[in-house]
């Protein structure tokens, strides 16, 4: 006997939701995180190790099989962020639907790491996208990633679904951002001219 339940959403009604419902919504969100893994370098191997049998972050509810950014709500940036990769990270982050969270995994994505003085390294992924949890290490142990996921889950559990909190999460785009030209796949120029 199938039961029709509406998909839980954090919409405007959630502001007016009674406390028990907010607890349920937060519970649902933090225990079914779909990961869009942005594996760039060595930390990606540690991420894979954390998803495998011994450490297994799937038992925390984090599923690493998001087919793409549009079906994910957690992005784990693991590895060195180069200046050439930075626009791609920004673009894929913007393609993720709200509510979305970012874990910066490893020293390189926290702050540039051992390559902080390089000519082509972005010193931390938080220069382009907002990060919720930073996991230090070079590379961090898989257990450190598990710890980071637990901290993120605590953070989601403590989310107050108030108007101010939603407004702060939504981060409305500025006019310059909305009319920024898109970069074509070949990197050869804007797909859409600015201002149109």
């Amino acid at each position, binding site marked *: 006997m199938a039961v029709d339940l509406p998909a839980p959403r954090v919409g405007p009604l959630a502001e007016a939701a009674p406390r028990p419902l907010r607890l349920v919504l937060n519970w649902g969100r933090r225990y079914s995180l779909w990961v869009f893994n942005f594996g760039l370098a060595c930390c990606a191997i540690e991420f894979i190790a954390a998803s495998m049998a011994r450490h297994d972050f799937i038992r925390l509810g984090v599923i690493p099989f998001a087919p793409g950014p549009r079906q994910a709500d957690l992005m784990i940036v693991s590895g060195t962020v180069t200046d050439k990769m930075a626009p791609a990270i920004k673009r894929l982050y913007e393609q993720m639907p709200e509510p979305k969270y970012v874990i910066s995994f490893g020293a390189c994505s926290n702050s*540039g790491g051992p390559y902080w003085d390089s000519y082509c390294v972005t*010193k931390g992924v938080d220069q382009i996208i907002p990060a919720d949890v930073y996991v230090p290490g070079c590379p961090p142990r898989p257990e450190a990633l598990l710890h980071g996921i637990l901290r993120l889950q605590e953070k989601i559990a403590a989310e107050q679904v108030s108007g101010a909190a939603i407004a702060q999460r939504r981060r409305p785009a500025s006019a310059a951002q909305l009319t920024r030209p898109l970069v074509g796949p070949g990197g050869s120029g804007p797909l859409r001219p600015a201002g149109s």
Partner: protein
Amino acid sequence: MSLAIGSPDAVGQRLGSALGLDAPLPAHDAQGTVCVDVPRERWHDALALARSDGGMDMLDWLSAVDEPDGDPAGVDVVAHLVDSRSGRGVGGPGGPGLVRLLARTRLPLADLAVASVTDLWPGAAWHERETHEMFGVRFDGFDDGTGQGLRPLLLPDGFEGTPLRKSFVLAARASKPWPGAKEPGESDAGPPSRRKVLPPGVPDPSWGPREAGT
């Protein structure tokens, strides 16, 4: 095993006489591989001869080394050539091993240009593009079949400068305050004293914002 091509003197002799020069080319043993120094204007000829007569049919890599303290100062372009038919086990267990050669030429700082070898090995195109963007070396006669000429390979659009030159300063060292040791062996935080010789690329402590307390 890796000196399978012969002794450095023999290689310098053979290549020098094949190029029609009076003296043998200077050659030395670089950690088990023979490295021969070729005059700049004969770069293409020397590599063509190594390919046709020496049997070095594979270009492993081509890159550059910035030698600002050399005599004369300049940028060395280095190519690693391999005979792909040789190798460990070829010719029996006591066989000669992998036949390979390092060819090197020095470009003066005033004119960083040398002939391109893309007509000998099309795969040299990517190596020459990378050397061009990282060291500022111009390869005359570059042709990779697309008609777009010598252009950057790896760096993002709009990047200015040639990063792997020793004169290219790592601006992040001056602009971003970094706690802790910046060089191996430093135990405490703090800028290196002016009397110490700074590694190439590290800006002088007078660059950028001053750290607290200095």
